């Protein structure tokens, strides 16, 4: 018999620069339903106090690489919400 599907994925969402300032947080632990995507993690963060100041389609990364909002998340993933980049 196959192992039961995990019902929850726990991820960590990192916030930087202006986004961290707006929420007063640098990271948030989020428990999401199975098959959740970056968009679901973003929705959760945007529902927090100050989160409405994060745009609906920010730059995102998963596990240190740029990722789209439709990227599926797995247990332990590190999601990052990236304000407009200003290096260089």
């Amino acid at each position: 018999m196959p192992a039961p599907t995990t019902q929850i994925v726990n991820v960590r969402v990192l916030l930087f620069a202006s986004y961290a300032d707006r929420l007063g947080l640098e990271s948030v632990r989020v428990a999401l339903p199975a098959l959740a995507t970056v968009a679901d993690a973003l929705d959760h963060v945007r529902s927090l106090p100050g989160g409405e100041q994060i745009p609906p389609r920010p730059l995102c990364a998963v596990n240190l690489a740029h990722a789209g909002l439709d990227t599926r998340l797995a247990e332990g993933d590190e999601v990052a919400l990236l304000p407009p980049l200003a290096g260089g």
Partner: protein
Amino acid sequence: MTFLSATPIDPATLIARVESPAHGGVASFLGQVRDHHGGRTVRRLEYSAYGPMAEEECARIVAEAEARWPVRVALEHRVGALEIGDVAVAIAAAGGHRDEAFAACRFVIEEVKHRVPIWKKEFYRDGAVEWVEPDSGAAGQRGGVAEVIGIESPSREVLGR
């Protein structure tokens, strides 16, 4: 290799890392801290980064440049507090001839601006402090949508070779 530096960048050291007897063309680029932005006087600034991802993204950009042109590339970006005139980013690209050196150097600075998670906080003479968020200029248009950066960037072709 470490691409982020909390201490001053020495361009000569960076160039020395890519030089070789086979490299007749060496192009370099320095980005230095400007004393003005949007009509306001800037006194100093601070760069912060998502360090682990910034290191990985810089490594990917250098690898892409070295796959696309016959060059060796060195790249460093400052983090922390910088004063006017400080070198914020330095790139050196060495190849057999100038064409590939210039092309690779230009590619690397453009990709750094669009892909590396680094942020800049400017401290103005009037006392204001603001995160710099590139507007809808070239950087903003490409930088505003994750899918474009991650999936459709021209550099993906390079990775796929």
